[in-house]
């Protein structure tokens, strides 16, 4: 372990290779807790061929806008864990890029969005943070 490189003590874990981070906790249909959002209303998260993927539906002036499907990277809660606790994902629209960093906290999906414009509109890059609940049929 002494030869293992690390940036903080939490990086130091017993060598027990994590071959696959189980994304089970992330999979499903997530809906924004804020019905008045001007941003992403729903996120569908699925696993295809062992890879996480997102489909995003955002609020537009004339209804929901389907952003299509994008691949995502799964992250665990610590370097020894094989349970998915969050993800990163990027949508490139050409005129703009939306990057996500998301984590599950107390059953909510907390989604941080970073929007950068690549066109000549002079719009500022901006940040959003919103909360999503997984829809279910338990009650």
């Amino acid at each position, binding site marked *: 372990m002494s030869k293992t490189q690390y940036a903080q*003590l939490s990086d130091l874990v017993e060598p027990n290779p994590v071959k696959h981070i189980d994304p089970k906790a992330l999979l499903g249909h997530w809906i924004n807790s804020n019905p008045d959002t001007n941003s992403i209303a729903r996120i569908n998260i699925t696993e295809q061929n062992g890879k996480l993927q997102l489909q995003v539906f955002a609020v*537009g002036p004339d209804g929901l806008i389907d952003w299509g499907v994008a691949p995502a990277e799964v992250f*665990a809660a610590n370097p020894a864990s094989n349970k998915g606790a969050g993800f990163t994902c990027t949508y490139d629209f050409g005129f703009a890029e939306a990057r996500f960093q998301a984590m599950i906290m107390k059953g909510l999906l907390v989604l941080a969005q970073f929007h950068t414009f690549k066109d000549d509109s002079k*719009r500022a890059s901006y940040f959003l943070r919103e909360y999503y609940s997984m829809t279910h049929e338990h009650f």
Partner: protein
Amino acid sequence: MDFKQNSHLHPDLLGPAAANLNPDKLLGRWINTNWETRGIAECTVARDGDDITVDITGVGEDGPIYWPTARATPLANLEEEAGQRTMAMTATFDLGFMRADTHLRINKGVFVIVLFATFLDDSGRANYLNREFFYRDA
């Protein structure tokens, strides 16, 4: 103007406040609220000309670990809860064996670092995320 969600059309994105983001509230030395952390001990945000730099010190076995300085990307913060509009930042740290993608912001006076660590070596460690809280060094 192209858009993919209503917030892409938010008028404040073209306003003077967003065009001239003021990082003053983020500048300074921030200390982890958890003195038993096994993660980030402290963080310093500074100006470097027109740029903003972020220095992080990790907790090591034999003392502090100084991460390479990263340049931050400032972001307007449009809709933070409770009407807070302090800017946020992203910063990526290249540690060779690991990349740490972070976002940093202030929530009610507390400095928050959210970290997504991706291992680039063959150690078999899982990529992981972490969130820690910091107070301003007086």
